């Protein structure tokens, strides 16, 4: 029981514990005065980071999430490198590339046609190819979408096949990772920026300003996000960065601002804020040097969930064909479904599954990392 209480104590008040540590160092005679401030800060940061990292790694899910994000990150980095070295842009460009992959088809009777990816009916074959072919012949037809090929003597490698327009899916998938990260980070940083600013200002000044900001937040929280974005995308041409900023503003000014405001309120009443004020610190100084740095860790948590939302929203809007974007995972699914492969299922699995799973997994990764961080910040959720 005793140990439980003490560990609980230094988990909940990390700042105080850190302060005590430096104080001990002072007593131990380390010459603090000659040490530059940034180095002390760095050391404190490293120490708290190490402890939090230890807590984070306790949840295996968080690690899995990090690995997923890292894999997608590698994919995003790999794409421009591959494009400038191995891949011929004419063939592999995710948007304008084209490769007609020749596939062997067996000609069968019309009513015996079972597998559309390797068989062709006699009527179609005579009509489209050559009136002289007969049942049982094998013909090589350039076809899209083509199944995955590993390359070899005559064809080029398409690890995930090609789409209905003859473009390489693997290249699209890597490019899509880049797009997703770009969008995710724009949205996340906007969220954090808006949420911390609004939250801190509302908490610090209180009164009417607080009331106004919080009512606005309530209102934004109430707005159905997807329909509004759909209308907006029909009205104006939206690209990736604009979408990221819009999601960030709506997300950051809504629920996150309310949560961060309550966090900022709990910091506002701490005694070191009074100390800073007595020492002559102005409003701006207190908000930017004391309140915001203490609110940021929590806002990073919501940033993770924000990335999840942004990725899903972009993919959904792209899937509906409403964004002014050339290529993304959502567009890949949109292409497949508008070209009539919506119910192709496993026979054209490379059209729907890579993109769908990529969106799901990356969102999963960020969500799980967010949960892991939540357990670090919120001790009550931790496994005892």
């Amino acid at each position, binding site marked *: 029981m005793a140990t439980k209480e003490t560990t609980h104590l230094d988990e909940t008040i990390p700042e105080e514990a850190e302060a005590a540590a430096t104080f001990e160092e002072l007593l131990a005679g380390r010459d603090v005065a000659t040490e530059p401030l940034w180095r002390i800060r760095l050391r404190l940061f490293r120490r708290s980071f190490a402890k939090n990292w230890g807590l984070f790694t306790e949840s295996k899910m968080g690690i899995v999430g990090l690995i997923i994000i890292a894999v997608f990150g590698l994919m995003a980095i790999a794409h421009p490198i591959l494009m400038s070295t191995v891949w011929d842009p004419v063939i592999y460009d995710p948007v304008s590339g084209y490769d007609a992959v020749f596939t062997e088809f067996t000609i069968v009777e019309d009513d015996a046609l079972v597998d559309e990816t390797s068989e062709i009916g006699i009527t179609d074959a005579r009509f489209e190819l050559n009136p002289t072919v007969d049942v049982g012949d094998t013909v090589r037809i350039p076809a899209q979408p083509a199944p995955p090929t590993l390359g070899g003597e005559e064809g080029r490698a398409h690890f995930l096949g090609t789409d209905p327009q003859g473009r390489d899916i693997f290249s699209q998938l890597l490019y899509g990772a880049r797009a997703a990260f770009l969008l995710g980070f724009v949205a996340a940083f906007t969220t954090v920026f808006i949420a911390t600013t609004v939250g801190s200002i509302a908490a610090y000044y209180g009164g009417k300003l607080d009331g106004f900001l919080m009512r606005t937040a309530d209102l934004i929280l109430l707005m*159905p996000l997807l*329909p509004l974005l759909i209308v907006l995308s029909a009205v104006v041409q939206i690209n990736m960065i604009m979408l990221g900023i819009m999601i960030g503003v709506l997300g950051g000014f809504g629920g996150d601002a309310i949560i961060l405001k309550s966090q900022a309120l709990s910091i506002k009443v701490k005694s070191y804020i009074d100390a800073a004020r007595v020492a002559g610190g102005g409003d701006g100084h207190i908000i930017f040097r004391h309140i915001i740095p203490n609110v940021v860790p929590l806002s990073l948590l919501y940033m993770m969930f924000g990335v*999840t939302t942004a990725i899903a929203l972009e993919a959904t809007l792209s899937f509906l064909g409403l964004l002014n974007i050339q290529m993304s995972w959502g567009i890949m699914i949109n292409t497949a479904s508008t070209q009539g492969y919506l*119910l192709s299922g496993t026979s054209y699995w490379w059209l729907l599954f890579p*993109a769908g799973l990529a969106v*799901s997994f990356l*969102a*999963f990764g960020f969500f799980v990392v967010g949960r892991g961080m939540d357990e670090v910040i919120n001790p*009550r959720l931790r496994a005892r």
Partner: protein
Amino acid sequence: MLRFLTRRLIQMFILFIIFLSVVWLLLHLMPGDISDTLIGDPNIPLSTRLELQERLGLNQPLHIQYWTYVTNFFKGELGVSFSRYPQDVWNILWEAIPRTLVLVLTATLIAYWMGFKSGKLIAWGRGGKTEQSFIVGGIFLQTVFYPWFAIVMLWTFGFFFGWFPIGRFISVGLWQGSGFDASSIFQQLILTTFIAFFVYLGARSIIKRAAPTLVTQQRLQRVVAGLIILVLVAFWYYHPARTYVADVVWHTVLPVATLGLVLFGAVMLITRTSMLETLGEDYILTARAKGLPKGVIRDRHAARNALLPVVTSFVLALGTVIGGAIITEEIFSWPGMGKLFLDGIIVSDIPLVAGALALTGVLTLFAHLVVDVLYTVLDPRIRIS
């Protein structure tokens, strides 16, 4: 309670006006005026365009236009659809609302009921493989790319196994010449379910007063619930439109299950967290010291309190529900408000889009009100102060 309700209603009215204004602003961001879109449409006569311009006040200054728009809404005049000229938008939406409500309400209720149950159970039996797999599954459902998930569900159960129909909400051939109207059947389905629910509530309160012991109370409640379900099923079984009702239900299962599953994941995770927090409370220790059976501690004490944050969470889940409904209707070709809305966007049918959005706003606010009332009923601390 009454004062709380009136205050809340006034707040909601203001919120709604703001929402209407945002919709209006968004639609006015479009270049040109709304009626321009009609010029190229050969189906619509020029006189109509002029008449419309007059009625919407499009040749008047902006603030007058805004005023006309708001007052028209409250007069119930949502205008005439461009794409389905000359149908009235209100009539089009009126037909679609019950379909959307059936989809959304059943999915939400089932997801909350099951999500709450399983969240409660995994938090109670903490640790172990079951909990871990439920958590991973829940997170997957919450983060899965919904349109893709819907496509996979449709393909798997509608196409590959062929258990459920692919798309639309009735088998058109079956209904032809039947003399039954799908919309009225839908409305009847909703109505009877509501009646059954309120009959159950009434019976419950009578039982609470009349039964001599708590044990008999619980037993009677279960018997009554069973009886009401039996009567409901029997009513539809002997209903003249039996086959058509079955057809509707058969078409409903897959979209409801798809939307419900995604919600289920979120509800389960929230319940689990909320339940874990509740289990650490002192009154749980008291309940154990009182020698109450495990099930009573779990359900009556822990879960009952864990329910409060779960109910509030519905307000935040509404966004998911609305977005999910739009996607579900699109992929399953379910002719509800979401599908109308998307179709309207694609063909720039502005009156239809504006109408659908405004009604979504009304329904959202109504859902908020229901959650508020439910919360006050569930938490005596709010109810009394």
